């Protein structure tokens, strides 16, 4: 059975391959090669959506990516639900299931359309004016309800199961657009010998040629010429042709983002094929052949289903074999509509009238229409339409001078074609930061000065005719590639006058008539005029106030008309009104395409230490520290974190603990000037540090604030083993490289990141030496030979090691550095040797408690980028005799030694069972109400099992002078009294470090 609006023959779709599909639950028949829009039109379905604000019934007006109305959702299965697709770009496949949006309960009967009746009360800026007060109502009431009522489609409820790929490509010439100009450009560019990529958003390459009927090129029908041209381009090894590939963004330095859709058009996609591929194309030269977009006419009731752009109607007829109606009124200010009228007339469609705004339409297309007997009405404006869910009449009025019309005549019809002319698609050119210029003759903006290695060709720079587009494209391709080629194209086609109209048409329908400018965001001429009346002058402000051009279609069909209306009201020429910025993406891009493979496990790298698997086998609970996975605690039985940490802490202090410190950043600083370099970088003095000794180093930024810390060992006179915080290693190395390369290039020093090269096994506790004794060779572990803060090189279980005697717990401690590959074997050897001594594995949480009990800071926890060494009690580390180090001059600023600076102190809660919140504020007196005077904050807070009470570190204004004072920490349950105490809570004499 043939669909009622399908022609008997013609079109590029495959009449041999019928396809069934559904729209809003009803099943229809179409053909392979149809779009959802063409197949619905063929079945007489005009109503395809409801408008955003007023829920007005809407039909399709365009045939391509410029479509503002026919937004649909396509569902393959529960997880594959794609909302907000333009029906004009959805390719039909067997079983395609689609639905309309923004309507409830059904497309034909929509409750939300009461907004349409209420529309006098929904003027421009309505949301800004109405929903401002009371503030609290916004979150609870206004926003949820506005969103529910206005939803443009809905999100899928399951994670996207499809795969998306991402690739880089380089070429000498990228051609955007596969119409006549783009094809000619590619033909020429290919002869330059370089790599040429041609990308086009459509299913087929050819652009306007896909809907041409009577044109001939080089003596051949345009269809044949197109087929031959595509075959010859495809045969060239240096040419890549991309279909269904939208150039959506023009990025700096000729990087063009292109999304290629690979499976959306297939009934049963191969699971191995990605759904989309994102091409990042870096081109030496770009040829933009993006074509043009037909402009609607702005007249009252211009949004009724059945009203569509004239050239879109021609595309439906010639490319898809679909008639837009049986009796059609054509309204135009441009010759192009005559081409559509002639083609429709030839296909047997009755042309009820051609209402031409121009008083004396002339030219070959107009003459051809006259010759065909089509009823042309010069100086005639369309001033209204009627019909419920489809147009049934058009109202035509003679124009009587400026802005005046005479008595109207009602003309029955079932479709209205409109054309205001064509707007060059300058989106990508404008994104490239190229400068546009206003062309008063063509009434449009055209590309002027390029900002990138780029040139426009064809209709996107106002060369609308087929012959001139081909010639322009070829010349652009030749220039882009540097090929010394020339070619002429013999074209036979009826060409019209390129000039059209912009802005609102005259009418006699009063101020409340709805003449839409922006279909997708429901903006009318009345809204634009109101915005100007309320004082908005800049087009950028008017755009935001009325939302014109701000919908997902980026104002493709509306921008120029909006400018025309505003210029008219402001009594200014258009170039003085300006132009809003064209933003990427040209058409919406899926998140999947942008994310590519960077999802789930591949979202971010995961760094794991050589000991990771052992810890996992022991049931460790891990935490993320920068990109690292670190064992946080090792629960036994049913222990929670609190219980596990208390046990681990006690075990370390009573016997011995083993801790994976491999994530510590490590930098090897080597060279004759290594000590001098260290002197200049770190606050400490390094010259006198003996070989085999260690020192706690503090690194400041040039502004004097602490940025990193760590133990540094001197391996040799010219070699330092520097450790940094886990998260700080790349930053510290970058900072060192910066000074070394740019400030002190005379220093003979090499810096090497060794973080991944060393596994670090920390052994902490009174039994540590006893455990190690049987394992090391060539190292004397005695306190005399290897005192606290020293290091030795030797072997452990046969593996070369740098053994540091250091402690981050206050206990006798060693850090065993071995090559990462041997890390686990050595760890297991130590683990086995420790069994008789109660060796306990512990994680980062226990490490934190142990160091806090000793008052050791964590950079980034006690410090926040505004703490000096003195603020955190590290004055002793600063080499005062040194003439200079990074940050020294800043530390001498008066503000850096103000007595009321926040200083590190210890806090004891009066009730030792109460553990303060980290980040909690400190105040001097109880009972304050906001705004309180805050004098400090808690930086670290734990329950100390060894001390049997809570402990906290805090940064408190003038803290060190407050020792013994009572302060308070405001909390939801009231002010918590605390006492200021020294920062070292446990073993203040420091005896335990000696075992």
């Amino acid at each position, binding site marked *: 059975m043939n669909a009622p609006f399908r022609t008997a023959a013609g079109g590029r779709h495959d009449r041999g391959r019928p396809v069934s599909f559904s729209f809003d639950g009803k099943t229809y028949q179409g053909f392979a090669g149809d779009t959802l829009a063409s197949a619905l039109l063929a079945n007489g379905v005009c109503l395809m959506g409801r408008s955003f604000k007023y829920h007005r019934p809407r039909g399709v007006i365009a045939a391509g990516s410029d479509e503002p109305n026919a937004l649909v959702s396509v569902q393959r299965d529960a997880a594959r639900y794609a909302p907000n697709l333009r029906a004009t770009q959805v390719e039909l496949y067997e079983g395609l299931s689609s639905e309309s949006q923004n309507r409830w309960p059904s497309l034909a009967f929509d409750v939300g359309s009461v907004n349409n009746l209420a529309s006098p009360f929904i003027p421009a800026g309505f949301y800004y004016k109405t929903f401002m007060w009371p503030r609290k109502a916004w979150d609870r009431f206004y926003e949820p309800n506005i969103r529910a009522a206005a939803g443009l489609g809905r999100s899928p409820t399951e994670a996207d199961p499809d795969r998306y790929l991402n690739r880089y490509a380089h070429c000498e010439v990228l051609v955007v657009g596969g119409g006549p100009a783009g094809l000619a450009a590619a033909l020429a560019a290919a002869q330059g010998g370089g790599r040429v990529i041609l990308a086009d958003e459509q299913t087929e390459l050819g652009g306007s040629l896909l809907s041409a009927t009577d044109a001939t090129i080089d003596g051949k029908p345009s269809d044949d010429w197109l087929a031959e041209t595509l075959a010859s381009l495809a045969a060239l090894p240096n040419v890549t042709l991309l279909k269904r590939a939208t150039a959506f963004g023009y990025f*700096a*330095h000729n990087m063009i983002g292109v999304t290629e859709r690979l499976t959306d058009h297939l009934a049963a996609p191969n699971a191995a094929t990605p759904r989309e591929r994102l091409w990042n194309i870096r081109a030496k030269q770009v040829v933009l052949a993006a074509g043009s977009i037909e402009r609607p006419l702005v007249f009252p009731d211009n949004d009724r289903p059945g009203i569509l752009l004239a050239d879109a109607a021609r595309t439906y007829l010639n490319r898809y074999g679909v008639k837009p109606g049986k009796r059609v009124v054509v309204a135009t200010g441009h010759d192009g509509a005559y081409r559509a009228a002639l083609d429709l007339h030839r296909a047997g469609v009755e042309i009820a009238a051609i209402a031409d705004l121009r008083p004396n339409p002339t030219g070959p297309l107009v003459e051809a229409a006259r010759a065909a007997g089509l009823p042309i009405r010069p100086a005639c404006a369309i001033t209204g339409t009627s019909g419920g869910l489809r147009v049934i009449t058009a109202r035509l009025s003679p124009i009587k001078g400026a802005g005046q019309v005479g008595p109207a005549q009602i003309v029955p019809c079932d479709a209205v074609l409109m054309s205001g002319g064509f707007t060059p698609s300058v989106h990508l050119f404008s994104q490239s*930061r190229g400068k546009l210029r206003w062309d008063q003759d063509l009434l449009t903006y055209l590309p002027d000065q390029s*900002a990138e290695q780029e040139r426009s060709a064809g209709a996107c720079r106002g060369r609308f005719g087929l012959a001139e587009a081909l010639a322009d494209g070829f010349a652009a391709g030749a220039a882009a590639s540097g090929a010394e080629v020339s070619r002429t194209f013999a074209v036979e086609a009826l060409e019209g006058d390129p000039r059209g109209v912009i802005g609102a048409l005259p009418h006699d329908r009063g101020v409340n008539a709805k003449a839409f400018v922006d279909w997708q965001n429901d903006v009318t001429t009345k809204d634009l005029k109101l915005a100007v009346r309320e004082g908005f002058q800049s087009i950028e402000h008017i755009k935001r106030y009325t939302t014109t051009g701000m919908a997902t279609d980026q104002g493709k069909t509306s921008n120029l008309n909006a400018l025309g209306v505003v210029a008219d009201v402001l009594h200014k020429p258009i170039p003085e009104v300006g132009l809003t910025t064209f933003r990427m993406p040209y058409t919406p891009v899926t998140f999947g395409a942008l994310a590519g493979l960077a999802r789930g496990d591949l979202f971010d790298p995961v760094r794991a230490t050589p000991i990771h698997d052992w810890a996992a086998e022991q049931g460790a609970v891990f935490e993320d520290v920068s990109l690292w996975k670190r064992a946080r605690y090792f629960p036994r039985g049913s222990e929670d974190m609190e219980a596990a940490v208390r046990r681990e802490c006690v075990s370390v202090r009573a016997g011995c603990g083993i801790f994976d410190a491999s994530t510590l950043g490590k930098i090897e600083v080597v060279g004759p000037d290594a000590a001098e370099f260290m002197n200049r970088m770190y606050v400490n003095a390094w010259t006198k540090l003996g070989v085999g000794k260690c020192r706690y180093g503090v690194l400041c930024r*040039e502004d004097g604030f602490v940025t990193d810390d760590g133990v540094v060992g001197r391996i040799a006179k010219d070699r330092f083993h520097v450790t940094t915080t886990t998260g700080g290693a790349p930053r510290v190395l*970058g900072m060192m*490289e910066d000074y070394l390369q740019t400030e002190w*290039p005379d220093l003979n020093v090499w810096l090497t990141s060794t973080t991944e090269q060393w596994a670090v096994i920390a052994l902490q506790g009174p039994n540590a030496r006893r455990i190690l004794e049987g394992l090391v060779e060539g190292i004397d572990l005695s306190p005399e030979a290897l005192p606290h803060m020293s290091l030795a090189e030797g072997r452990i279980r046969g593996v070369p090691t740098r053994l540091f005697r250091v402690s981050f717990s206050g206990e006798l401690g060693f850090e065993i550095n071995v090559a990462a590959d041997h890390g686990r074997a050595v760890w297991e050897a130590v683990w086995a040797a420790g069994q008789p001594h109660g060796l306990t594995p512990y994680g980062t949480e226990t490490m934190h408690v142990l160091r806090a009990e000793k008052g050791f800071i964590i950079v980034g926890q006690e410090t926040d980028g505004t703490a000096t060494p003195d603020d955190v009690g590290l004055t002793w580390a600063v080499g005062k005799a040194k003439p200079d180090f990074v940050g020294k001059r800043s530390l001498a600023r008066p503000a850096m030694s103000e007595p009321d600076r926040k200083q590190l102190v210890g806090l004891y809660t009066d009730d030792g069972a109460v553990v303060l919140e980290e980040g909690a504020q400190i105040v001097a007196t109880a009972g304050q109400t906001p705004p309180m005077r805050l004098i400090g904050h808690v930086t670290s807070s734990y329950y100390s099992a060894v001390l049997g009470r809570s402990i906290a570190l805090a940064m408190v204004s003038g803290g060190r002078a407050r020792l013994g004072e009572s302060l308070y920490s405001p909390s939801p349950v009231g002010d918590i009294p605390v006492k200021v105490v020294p920062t070292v809570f446990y073993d203040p004499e420091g005896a335990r470090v000696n075992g």
Partner: protein
Amino acid sequence: MLLITCPYCGPRPELEFSHGGEAHIARPEKPSELSIEDWTQYLYLRANPKGLHAERWRHLHGCARFFNALRDTTTDQFVATYKAGEPRPTGGAA
């Protein structure tokens, strides 16, 4: 994404680089002898010009070297890239 010509490696995508702020600001030889005003000038105040800007880049994920570039801040186009230590090419505001 910018295309940046490392003076050592050639043109590479911006992803491989890190930006290092304004170029040709030498750390004073003897900071301790600087007045607070001069030190503040060195530490905090930068030109931030509209137009040609000499700035530091580091080819972090390549040769790891710092170099200098002359970039037009209004167009993002590079006029020149050159090795650290070399004088700023002529052109643009100082």
